[in-house]
């Protein structure tokens, strides 16, 4: 089945696991893939695409070994194939300049400051995935019970028709 993937890019294993745990309530409908750095993220992205799935949301740390998170988000925004991915920076150490670059050049959708709360992360992921499915999916019904149902209903009201 064609699934939507949440890609988490975080180098510290404990933090990565914590994010994955906090996203558990989404795993019934979405697949969570973990990457430890940008290189790894590219590999995951390739696997996802070859498997017929696609990434809908990238949750990305900034300070990573090797390439920086913001640079990767800019790269995602420049490629036509990955532009529709919702981009969220989840970090404690992005300076003002990096953040500005993320907003202007990566079309950043949200900034989550560490440490985050489960509720906050949930709300952000729910909201971003709702935006993604409204923009990219024909059939919204499978997502009503897990994402922002009221907003999905409004979108369905616009495009739904009697058969």
């Amino acid at each position, binding site marked *: 089945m064609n699934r939507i993937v949440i890609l988490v890019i975080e180098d510290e294993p404990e933090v990565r696991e914590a994010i994955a745990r906090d996203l558990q309530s989404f795993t019934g409908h979405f697949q969570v893939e973990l990457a430890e750095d940008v290189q790894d993220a590219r590999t995951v992205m390739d696997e996802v695409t070859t498997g017929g799935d696609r990434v809908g949301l990238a949750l990305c740390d900034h300070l990573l070994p090797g390439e920086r998170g913001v640079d990767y988000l800019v790269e995602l925004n420049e490629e036509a194939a990955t532009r529709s991915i919702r981009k969220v920076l989840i970090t404690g150490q992005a300076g003002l300049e990096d953040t500005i670059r993320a907003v202007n050049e990566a079309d950043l959708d949200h900034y989550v400051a560490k440490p985050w709360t489960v509720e906050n992360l949930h709300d952000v992921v729910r909201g971003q995935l709702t935006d993604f499915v409204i923009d990219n999916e024909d059939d919204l019904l499978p997502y*009503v019970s897990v994402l922002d149902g*009221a907003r999905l209903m409004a979108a*369905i009201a616009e495009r*739904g028709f009697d*058969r």
Partner: protein
Amino acid sequence: MALTKRPVRMSLKGKLSRPVGLVLGAIVFTLPYVVEFEGLSVAGHRIFSVFLLAIVLWVTEAIPLHATAALIILLEILLISDKALPPLPAGFEAPSFSTFFASLAHPVLMLFLGGFFLADGAAKFRLDQNMARVLLRPFGDSPTRIMLGLMLITAAFSMFMSNTATTATLMAVVLPVIATLAPEDRLRTGLALSIPVAANIGGIGTPVGTPPNAIAVGSLADAGISISFVQWMVMAVPMMVVLLLIAWYLLTRLFPARERSLQLTIHATFDKSRPAQVFYVTFAVTVALWMTEPLHGISSSIVGFLPVVILLATRVFSARDLQSVQWHVLWLVAGGIALGIGVNASGLDAWLVGLVGFESIGKALLILALASVALLLSTFISNSATANLLIPIGLSLALSDAVAATPSLVAFFIAIGASLAMALPVSTPPNAIAFSTGAVNTRDLAVTGSIIGVTGLVLYVFAAPLLWDLTGVTP
């Protein structure tokens, strides 16, 4: 938590149905070319092919519903019009090919287009959401009364908007409430079901309520029988209200509330911009003209074109808005109308009627049978496709000397039978929406949907005619 994967799609529209539908379609299409049916003309044979193909394609959805409609129009032109290939034998008065193209701009489609403009405008200026919130206020905070309010409002809206859009709009109001209820509170299910049920029932109320009604009105117009907007409402609305109240009572019994009071967000801010005001006035004038047809005599389809002209001329609707009209729904209706024209012109209808000894069936039984078949069929396939396939047959039966039932009643009851089908998630998009919330399971839907469907059928077929006699509005 149970996963809402896509059970909605599984039954008839699985991956296999496409190739199976196409192959089966090709086989049934060739059948009348291979087998010669006694007493059926050459044109009749050809349209029989088209009809059989339409059944297969509309049931399996091997190609989209509206594509089947377009295919029917093309095939009819190629097979039985004055441009037919090979030409039909002399003596057969082939209809002009433009007759079939004209079904795409049939008057009833203009009526429907007007309905689309009103519905799209209501959504654009959030009139629907605001009205829903304002109208809910008087119903207070008791769960059962709120449910009644929701159902009345949903039904009223869905008389003019599509059942699907109405359901989604009202569901957006209700979902936040459902989220606050305890998981074991049955009211969750009751609320989630009340909206699609009311939308399905409300669609019966006017000719623009839902496509099957348009197909009925359009096919009747082609048979020379005109039904006005008000006439339809007089026939449909009283029983609609009764059925709505029965459905409400049933839902409150089946899904009793634990919570004593509910908090609804009822903030409403009406758009007061100039375009919005133009729209409000246009809406009111159009509906008023529809309701007063007996006074001024302007047919509802002509009135339907009025909001189209006004809203485009005042730039309240842009070219983009015009583009976003759901033309495919109109085309689906056109396909049914074109099929009816072909079936009638080719003489297939008379032949089909002569095939079975319908003299033995009484009028009432015929109507009950057709409405039941419509109910059953549209539980599984599209309501519009059901009406498209059954109304031409029903009308030819009604018009034949052997049966002589009132044609308008036959078309009316088939359309209503199709709307009453709501026992499965696949039955109608509103049901699929309710199902998607996760608050409703298949069993809840099956129990509620079949009770309401059968009750509605009995009410309409048996009680409605008595009421018409009583009030002297017999069509």
